[in-house]
């Protein structure tokens, strides 16, 4: 499997990246770990005449845990997430999700930035970032802007990032309460048949806030405001969980593929969300 020929660039700063993007427009693509892009290039499903390798740009490999928020550079790998004790103490759901992505080899190379910027509905980090109400920093010729994860995804592989922009950082408000990232997949390395990211805050036995997002059940990740709202003000009992699942099922829009027909995916989505809420509740 040999990809089509391309020009390779390895700029050493962001200005260099942006000037190549400005010159070649959508004929150019940036690459972090490449573990989503290279397989597509090998299959010749992605045509990338100008490939910009970000590995020498620098400044995008830090994880910083602050008083109110966490910042994660776009070049931070899934392995870095799993390996960072300070991050795990502050936001354990990140490690729980990262451990369910692909396999060890891929996690050494695959990055957070690539995972969230790619726009593949099968990627796990986008739903997770919507659950956590993260924002993405994108840098372009007109400067830097922030885009909420919940506003970023427009359709499969279509995002709010323009062709001449680069996603450089993810910022996550410090999460509180119980958490779970639950994923059903056919085998290690597969994308989710259904996955759910849940954060629940309880006070005095009652849920005061809940955030729920689903992975690979539409052409974008699905943040289900209604599912979270169904839990707020309840003891997160069975009736509330059933209401949250019903609300979530109203928000997803799965399509039939080799992971199963629509009815099966909706069934699995319900099972997975039930498990995720129960686990998040037990940790809240």
């Amino acid at each position, binding site marked *: *499997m*040999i*990809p*089509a*020929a*391309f*020009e*390779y660039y*390895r700029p050493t700063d962001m200005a260099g990246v942006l000037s190549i993007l400005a010159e070649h427009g959508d004929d150019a693509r940036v690459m972090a770990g*490449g*573990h989503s892009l*290279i*397989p597509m*290039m*090998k299959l010749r499903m992605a045509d990338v005449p100008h*490939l910009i*390798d970000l*590995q020498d740009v620098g400044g995008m490999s830090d994880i910083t845990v602050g008083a109110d928020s966490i910042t994660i550079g776009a070049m931070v790998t899934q*392995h870095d997430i799993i390996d960072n004790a300070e991050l795990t103490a502050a936001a354990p759901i990140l490690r729980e999700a990262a451990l369910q992505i*692909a*396999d*060890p*080899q*891929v996690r*050494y*190379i695959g990055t957070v930035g690539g995972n969230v910027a790619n726009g593949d509905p099968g990627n796990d980090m986008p739903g997770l970032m919507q659950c956590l109400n993260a924002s993405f920093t994108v840098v372009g010729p007109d400067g830097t802007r922030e885009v909420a994860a919940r506003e970023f995804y427009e359709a499969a592989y279509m995002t709010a990032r323009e062709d001449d922009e680069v996603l450089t950082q993810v910022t996550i408000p410090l999460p509180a309460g119980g958490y779970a990232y639950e994923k059903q997949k056919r085998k*290690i*390395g597969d994308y989710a048949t259904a996955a759910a990211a849940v954060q629940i805050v309880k006070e005095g036995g009652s849920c005061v806030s809940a955030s729920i997002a689903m992975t690979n059940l539409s052409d974008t990740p699905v943040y289900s405001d209604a599912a979270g709202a169904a839990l707020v003000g309840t003891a997160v009992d069975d009736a509330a969980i059933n209401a949250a699942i019903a609300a979530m099922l109203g928000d997803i829009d799965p399509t039939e593929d080799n992971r199963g027909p629509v009815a099966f995916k909706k069934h699995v989505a319900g099972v997975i969300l039930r498990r995720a809420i129960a686990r998040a509740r037990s940790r809240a």
Partner: protein
Amino acid sequence: MSNKKHITLSVNGKTEEFLAEPRELLIYTLRERLNITGPHIGCETSHCGACTVTIDGKSVKSCTMFAVQAEGAEITTIEGIGGPDDLHPLQEAFKEHHGLQCGYCTPGMITRATKLLEENPNPTEEEIRFGMAGNICRCTGYQNIVKSIQAAATEMNAAKEAAE
């Protein structure tokens, strides 16, 4: 398109320099350019792990990296781990515990396992299965692969203790 890049990398301690098109995948560089045929091409779609090598301390599927990305990197393949006259404890254990049947996945398995044991010298069976999840054995000989890695871990820990 004549856009060949000058690439320098180190494979098993030896510096290699060559000109290659950017689209040349590292597995082809190793096997066809450098005649290092230990890493195998199995699925060629980032799933099976037969092409696993160690690059700057990370287990990597060399079918999913362009050689040009590895410019300046230190690469270790199964050939750099041990040879017929100086088997690595993992190679010895795979031999002893029937950790291979057809042997096709073995170079990737052992290369990955060296890194796994480096990060976790005393893995449980579950940790071995999780840490080896990026390597597939078409003969389905997982039971003995796990047993081999456990045996190698015991052996390596005993040798380390004896040396201290």
